[in-house]
């Protein structure tokens, strides 16, 4: 068998039993054909019935947009019908509706806030809303949305702002803006000290900014210009709003949580503890981009320095301790300023040029500052396996650099 043809025939000479059933396949195809014929006929009948039923409603003067008057409160502004939109499958549950009795109030409040935000952030750009209400409520996506036509010295374009509640955690940097990937230079990802995740993407003719607040609100602002057919995207003039403008819009104080949706209030605690916890959250999100931080931060007690702990859902607990001075007799040996002695492999010891000394063992890192402050970060549970000594040391350094609020 030195020939390729013979080898191929030999390789296929003993096939395993086939999973193909020709008779079953033909029967399925025949059923499908019958179903298509039946659904086509019944669809035409259903269309006829719907048309007959719709005629009296049209003559009654109700255009069919918005909610039925008298349901509750003022009429909720909703977008007009979109002829190209695919109708929602009634069997598929959509997003949970927001309280409609406050819909009109919320839309008006958001509209006022957005007008103020545009005037404050981009006063030289003329923004004309495409609907008189500015914001309308889109029940299909359970979100408030506003569309503007933009005109400025740099050109024209469109702006869309959406406000909604997202039940999931905000996306990680790895998901939306992975460092080192092509296109990473077009996007930015930042977590503010208050825990708000800010994401921008700039494709020149289309720009976007998103703000994920800690209470679950997502504010999206996107500006773009239409690209005529046959035109290359880099030849199109960018929209008159930059990503900085969009970032300012999504962080505008008035564009905030929707009424009727419970926000998890920030935990009570002293500002120094909250600052420490924010630093821990920020660093954990960077180190564990796939971590689900389902638990809210829990402040500790400032007795004997500060002690705070943070439970990362399913991953374990990380504890941060701050002692004012290095006076613990048990830690006296650690407090001296001698160079790091030779340590077993499991221990990590570094002396920085400014005299800061970091000592770490498995699941723990302690930082001694020249001023005598001691920061200890301890990881328990799965976190201890996933965070290296260097990771814990980075968090300890960030804690040491966190200014008190």
């Amino acid at each position: 068998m030195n020939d390729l043809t013979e080898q191929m025939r030999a390789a296929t000479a003993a096939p395993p039993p086939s999973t193909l059933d020709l008779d079953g396949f033909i029967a399925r195809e025949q059923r499908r054909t019958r179903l298509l014929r039946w659904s086509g006929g019944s669809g035409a009948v259903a269309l006829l019935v719907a048309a007959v039923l719709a005629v009296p409603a049209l003559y009654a003067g109700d255009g069919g947009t918005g909610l039925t008057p008298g349901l509750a409160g003022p009429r909720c502004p909703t977008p007009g019908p979109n002829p190209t939109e695919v109708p929602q499958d009634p069997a598929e549950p959509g997003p949970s509706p927001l309280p409609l009795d406050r819909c009109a109030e919320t839309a008006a409040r958001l509209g006022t806030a957005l007008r103020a935000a545009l005037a404050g952030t981009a006063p030289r750009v003329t923004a004309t809303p495409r609907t008189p209400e500015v914001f309308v409520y889109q029940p299909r996506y359970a979100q408030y949305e506003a569309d503007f036509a933009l005109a400025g010295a740099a050109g024209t374009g469109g702006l869309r702002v959406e406000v909604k509640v997202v039940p999931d955690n905000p996306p990680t940097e790895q998901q939306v803006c992975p460092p080192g990937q092509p296109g990473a230079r077009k996007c930015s990802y930042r977590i503010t000290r208050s825990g708000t995740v800010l994401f921008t993407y700039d494709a020149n003719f289309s720009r976007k900014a998103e703000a994920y607040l800690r209470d679950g609100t997502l504010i999206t602002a996107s500006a773009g210009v239409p690209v005529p057919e046959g035109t290359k995207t880099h030849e199109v003039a960018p929209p008159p709003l930059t990503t900085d403008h969009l970032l300012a819009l999504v962080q505008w104080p008035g564009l905030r949580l929707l009424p009727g949706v419970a926000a998890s209030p920030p935990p009570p605690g002293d500002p120094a503890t909250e600052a420490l916890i924010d630093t821990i959250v920020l660093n954990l999100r960077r180190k564990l981009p796939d971590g689900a931080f389902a638990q809210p931060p829990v402040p500790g007690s400032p007795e004997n320095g500060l002690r705070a702990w943070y439970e990362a859902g399913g991953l374990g607990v990380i504890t941060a301790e701050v002692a004012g001075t290095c006076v613990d007799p048990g830690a006296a040996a650690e407090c001296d300023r001698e160079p790091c002695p030779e340590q077993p492999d499991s221990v990590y010891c570094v002396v920085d040029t400014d005299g800061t000394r970091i000592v770490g063992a498995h699941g723990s890192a302690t930082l001694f500052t020249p001023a005598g402050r001691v920061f200890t970060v301890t990881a328990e549970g799965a976190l201890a396996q996933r965070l290296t000594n260097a990771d814990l040391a980075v968090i300890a350094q960030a804690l040491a650099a966190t200014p008190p609020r």
Partner: protein
Amino acid sequence: MKDVDGFREYAGSRLEGWRRTAYLLSGDWHLADDMVSSALTGLYRHWDRVSRMDNPDAYIRTCLLRAMLNERRRPWRRERSFDVLPDRAATTPPPDGVADREAVVALLAELPARRRAVLVLRYFCDLSVEQTAAELGCSAGTVKSQTSRALEALRARLQGTGLVAEEA
């Protein structure tokens, strides 16, 4: 009215051959069944037209080639990274002959898809250069060059074992 009996007779007599072709193209019997199933669906729905063609086999081979190319583009066929290496296959030697039979499939799997298709069509389906070019939608010169490069690649891997004869 569709000639279902004609379809059953035609497909039933060639089903095993299509499976073998699909196996050589894909290197996996389960995938081969999927490809044949996909091709059968197209064949059944256009049977009225295909049954009047001079060479219906060419239609089904084109369906198989498209199914192979489409299958390779599916997201779950892309490369993925894992933290832990998956279990390895047993290292006990297979029965006599099995290794030889699997060798040619493994070698084909290392070739780019179109070169693999050229070899399967020419050396397993016994098609001429012109017929292969027509089924792949390219020129005869392209088929010749692809065949030459594919055989060259196989020879380089086999280091003169004689599996691949000189091209006629």
